[in-house]
């Protein structure tokens, strides 16, 4: 993470803190702003954990409802809202998974993507689908670790906090998950890199 992006992240945190304080006073406009700032990221996270867009949207809605309810107790002491949202969303995802058996991979809903498909895009989509299935086949903890660090862009300490594991344990989960993916996806990458 470059210094500039760290400064930008810190400014984002301060903006989140201000918005949460307003939400705590019942400011619905501030809540709407917070939702718009974080919704796509939380849906994407829950979608990768659950493999289902509708379920991901349900989890996101419940996550933000909890934020609305708890905002009056927020104290700007350095906790990042993004970490808190990911932690709540992850708990909701795991609760959901515990209540309902995981659907077979073939039943996992396709992500919405209305973009027109040229030849290169079709190829990329096909590869993306293969990779998505490979990810879905990983043990939960490894997939969640990769999702938090690679796709969600959380720092290692933040991801470890969300998963309630040590940084060393997180690194081990990441390494094992990526090693498995590398084995399963061997041969795909050169074609992908040629696309770019």
């Amino acid at each position, binding site marked *: 993470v470059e210094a500039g992006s760290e400064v930008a992240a810190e400014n984002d945190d301060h903006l989140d803190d201000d918005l949460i304080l307003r939400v705590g006073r019942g400011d619905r406009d501030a809540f709407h702003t917070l939702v718009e700032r974080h*919704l796509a990221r939380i849906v994407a996270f829950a979608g990768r954990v659950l493999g289902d867009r509708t379920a991901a949207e349900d989890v996101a809605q419940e996550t933000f409802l909890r934020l609305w*309810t708890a905002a009056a107790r927020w*104290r700007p002491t350095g906790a990042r809202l993004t970490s808190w949202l990911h932690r709540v969303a992850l708990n909701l995802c795991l609760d959901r998974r515990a209540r309902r058996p995981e659907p077979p991979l073939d039943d996992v809903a396709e*992500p919405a993507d209305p973009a027109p498909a040229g030849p290169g895009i079709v190829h990329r989509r096909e590869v*993306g689908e293969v*990779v998505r299935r490979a990810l879905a086949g990983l043990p939960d903890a490894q997939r969640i670790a990769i999702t938090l660090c690679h796709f969600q862009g959380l720092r290692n*300490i933040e991801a470890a906090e969300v998963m309630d594991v040590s940084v060393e344990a997180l690194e081990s989960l990441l390494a094992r998950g990526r090693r498995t993916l*590398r084995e399963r996806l061997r041969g795909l*990458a*050169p074609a992908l890199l040629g696309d770019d």
Partner: protein
Amino acid sequence: MADAMSQARLEDILDAYGADPARWPAAERDAALALLARSPDARARRAAAAELDACLAAVPDVVPASDLGARIVAATPARPARPPRRAWRRFAVLVPLAAAAALAVWLGRDVPRGTGGGDAVETAALTAELDTLELPTDALLDVAVVDSLDEDPPTFGCRPGELGCPDLDSADDRQSRRFPRRSPHA
């Protein structure tokens, strides 16, 4: 100058975080880049990690419905639930006033009529609201008074940084200080 990094540690980092230095632990980034600059083996390892990164980049995001945000806002209750501490705060203001009034009654009960009797009636009414307090000083032992002195929520059972829990880390360098026991590499 960054401390020298071993090839094994660089491989651990590449295995866990991939080829992009932006994803590496900040405290080790400079040392890792220095090793990459002088080691062809390290560069080959990084290229292999970049191949997997490219595969992962091909996975599309799950995109929410365009109206989901508006639906979430519309589905929330009119006001967020207020925490119980607010009620304690209001009570905490009343208790010392009532205690002072009760103390005045206690001290003045042998005073002859005509020296502030009206005030005594008023403060007696206030004291009646605190029907469990037999002596004026009992108010100082009341749980509400003790609780109201502590503005911070209890730390027991809280995780650092969790909503509503105090976070001792308010310094700039959160990455290195939030979990000092857990993060020798962070």
